[in-house]
């Protein structure tokens, strides 16, 4: 394929997180006039969930939406000649690529060529090197839990290579969110991957688009201070990217939400620490002087720059830490808070008995509606009309986690009056830790299927 150094290219977001609506990606491919559709599907939580699915079945562990992608999105992308770049391979990029390739053939999609990027799975290196974890400052082996997975955040390099080889669908695992956008921009403009200012700019574009609806009105409304007129029809964002270092963000016509200077400013700072040193696999980006301005037809962003990329890559290490048991009971009407507090005392007593049978690593008591989210920072009222007691406990022993959940449920049988509904669950706990791996220890590859 050509790497035509056109002055401008339109690049769209096709997914902002692991459960985003595929119909929005289809809409973007159909009406967005985008050349590339970049789909972020991974976060710390979603990657761990995918790893758990692969533990259950070694043939799975890729994004749960892949069937819908194959049947709804691939035909539209094939028809409109839109290239897709995604980390929906999650814990199993090879299986994801084979699945999409097979479905493309079955549907006779003649323009579709699938490429798989591998190399983010660094479990063998972590197993062999027992790295020091950022969270504990101690070697991995000192944790009691069992190592389940290790994935390095990889950058745009192999995306650029795959697009250069003619791939129209590029799928990998833990490709860093902004790199999904950096890859197509570098390919399209023929940029050098060590032009750090350009890489910083491309990373800014990726950062503004990667969270999807968070820049088109999601996670924003706070009436009456911040108002979004309607949420009926969402749109993912796209950007017209100029090779000179300016991007204009937009959303699809006839959609709701809002794309404004304010939403773009919020997104620029989202999950960034030092704006002068935003480390990705591609660059040490600098967003300190990024400007956001309203322009005709959208919102412009420019002013990003960057320095050389880091020599090490961040690794997400998944460690099996047992199970979380959770129980919830609700109370309503006069004295609801007192009854919830009584229920909490009852559960605390039962938990003491459970502790004699096994170890609870952590337990938490929340009164939802009162202090369940901001904890001690919440003002304590005299009463509340509705209160929901939630108790969560982590234990390496599934039976202990289950016993705590059941102790909460049992309040409805032997506890205060009017227990208005209850629920309980026991889920496996895969905890994310982080370490760093030298670039030289990573072996990335591209396979065209």
């Amino acid at each position, binding site marked *: 394929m050509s790497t035509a150094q056109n002055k401008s290219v339109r690049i769209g977001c096709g997914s902002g997180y692991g459960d985003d609506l595929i119909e929005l990606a289809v809409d973007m491919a159909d009406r967005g006039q985008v050349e590339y559709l970049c789909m972020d599907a991974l*976060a*710390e*939580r979603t990657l*761990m969930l995918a790893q758990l699915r692969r533990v259950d079945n070694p043939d799975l562990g890729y994004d749960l939406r892949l069937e819908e992608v194959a049947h709804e999105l691939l035909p539209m992308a094939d028809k409109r000649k839109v290239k897709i770049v995604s980390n929906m391979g999650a814990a199993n990029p090879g299986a994801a690529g084979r699945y999409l390739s097979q479905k493309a053939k079955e549907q006779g999609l003649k323009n579709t060529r699938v490429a798989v990027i591998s190399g983010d799975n660094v479990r063998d290196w972590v197993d062999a090197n027992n790295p020091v974890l*950022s*969270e504990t400052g101690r070697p991995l082996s000192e944790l009691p839990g069992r190592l389940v997975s290790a994935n390095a955040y990889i950058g745009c390099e192999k995306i650029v290579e795959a697009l250069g080889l003619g791939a129209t669908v590029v799928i990998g695992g833990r490709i860093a969110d902004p790199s999904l956008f950096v890859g197509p921009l570098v390919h399209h403009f023929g940029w050098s991957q060590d032009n750090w200012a350009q890489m910083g700019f491309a990373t800014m574009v990726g950062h503004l688009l990667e969270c999807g609806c968070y820049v088109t009105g999601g*996670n*924003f409304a*706070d009436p*009456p*201070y*911040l108002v979004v007129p309607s949420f009926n029809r969402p749109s993912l964002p796209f950007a017209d990217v100029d090779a000179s270092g300016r991007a204009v963000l937009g959303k699809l016509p006839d959609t709701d939400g809002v794309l404004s200077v*304010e939403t773009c*400013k*919020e*997104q*620029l*700072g*989202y*999950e*960034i*620490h*030092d*704006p*002068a040193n935003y480390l990705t696999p591609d660059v040490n980006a600098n*967003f*300190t*002087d*990024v*400007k*956001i301005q309203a322009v005709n037809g959208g919102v412009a962003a420019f*002013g990003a720059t960057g320095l050389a990329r880091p020599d090490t890559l961040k690794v997400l290490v998944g460690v099996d*830490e047992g199970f*979380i048991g959770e129980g919830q009971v609700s109370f309503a009407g006069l004295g609801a808070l007192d009854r919830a507090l009584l229920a909490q005392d009852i559960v605390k007593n039962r938990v003491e008995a459970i502790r004699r049978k096994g170890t609870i690593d*952590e*337990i*938490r008591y*929340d009164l*939802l509606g009162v202090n*369940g*989210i*901001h*904890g*001690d*920072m919440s003002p304590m009222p005299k009463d509340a009309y509705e209160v929901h007691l*939630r108790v*969560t*406990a*982590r234990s390496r022993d599934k039976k202990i986690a289950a016993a705590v959940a059941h102790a909460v449920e049992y309040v409805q049988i032997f506890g205060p009056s009017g227990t208005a509904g209850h629920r309980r669950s026991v889920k496996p*706990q*895969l*905890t*994310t830790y*982080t370490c760093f791996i030298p670039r030289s220890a990573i072996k990335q590859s591209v396979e065209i299927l």
Partner: protein
Amino acid sequence: MSTSTVDAAAEGILLRQVAYARSGDKGDTSNVIVIPYDERNYEWLRQHLTVEFVRTLFDKVVKGPIIRYEFRGICGLNFVMQRALEGGVSRSLNLDAHGKSRSNLILGMRIKADPPPAGLRLP
């Protein structure tokens, strides 16, 4: 006019009247970016919304340091709080494991300042 000035002097100005915010997570680190509606109030925010002041609110949940970074271009103050999310999203037992509502928490802070900034949004 005079009534609201008296109120502001007594109780302080609600941060939500001056700025908006968004919070997110990376591991056990929480960040909250605070952005004034009117860029002319950036200096006022820089002066009053200090790390020490923010610490008074978050001290009960933030076990590590709080650092304030400046997004000069968009006039944003970014508070980065370490060991702030009870272990982080994969481990925290908090319903809001990402700490996404920390932005709403910070916007409830009241700043006592004389004179108050111009162009307050709503009471």
